[in-house]
């Protein structure tokens, strides 16, 4: 089965951990993830600037490793990311900001990517919505 997974919650929220565990289970059981889409506070899961305590899980790192390992399509909504200060090098240069915290494997792109994934996937699974 083809899954699209959308995440709306920040990495310190339990929904983000559940989303990652769900995504790992999807792959472990031989299904396909057509796209991960991070929206609203979910964009912080793609930030390399998040620092966790030494005895706490580092969810942004775990997401990054997971996406790298399985060569997944990880998209971060650009509008949501810009208003939360999660920029890549290109956007930091465009808006003259000194810090970029979003790097590969994440791509900043538009909400059209969520709709496109929905059309391809058999199931859209959302985490961290209201």
């Amino acid at each position, binding site marked *: 089965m083809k899954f699209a997974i*959308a995440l*709306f919650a920040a990495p310190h929220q339990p929904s983000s951990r559940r989303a990652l565990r769900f995504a790992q289970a999807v792959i472990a059981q031989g299904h396909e993830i057509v796209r991960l889409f991070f*929206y*609203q506070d979910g964009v912080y899961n793609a930030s390399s600037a998040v620092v966790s305590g030494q005895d706490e899980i580092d969810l942004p790192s775990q997401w990054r490793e997971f996406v790298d390992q399985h060569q997944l399509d990880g998209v971060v909504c650009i*509008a*949501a990311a810009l*208003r939360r200060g999660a920029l890549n090098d290109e956007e930091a240069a465009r808006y003259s900001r000194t810090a970029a915290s979003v790097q590969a494997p994440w791509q900043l792109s*538009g*909400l*059209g990517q*969520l*709709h496109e994934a*929905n*059309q391809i996937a058999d*199931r*859209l699974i*959302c985490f961290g*919505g*209201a």
Partner: protein
Amino acid sequence: MKSLLIINRQAPWSGPGAREALDIALAGGAFDLPIAMLFLDDGALQLMPGQHPQKLQQKDLGANLQALPMFGVDSLYVSARSLAERGMPQTSLTLPAEVLDDTALRALIERYDQVVTI
């Protein structure tokens, strides 16, 4: 094409949620996708007339809401219970949203392939 129902539960000025739910609908409408929006719980407050966002130094969400039909998103619904709980009369809403009781609401959610709740 798969259809999408967006359930919009956020009050208009409580944070970016209301606008971000709306942005999903507007982006999908631009691709001519079958998209509907349901205003539920505090989301119903987005349809209240006589709001003055400039006094909160906020951009007018109403303008974006009015853009929904122009973007092809004209399947708009609001929960009768949510309106009643907030003392909002069904007759003075800022958008032509269909008022649904709880039974109709269940049928609506059942009808759509995918659901996003914000």
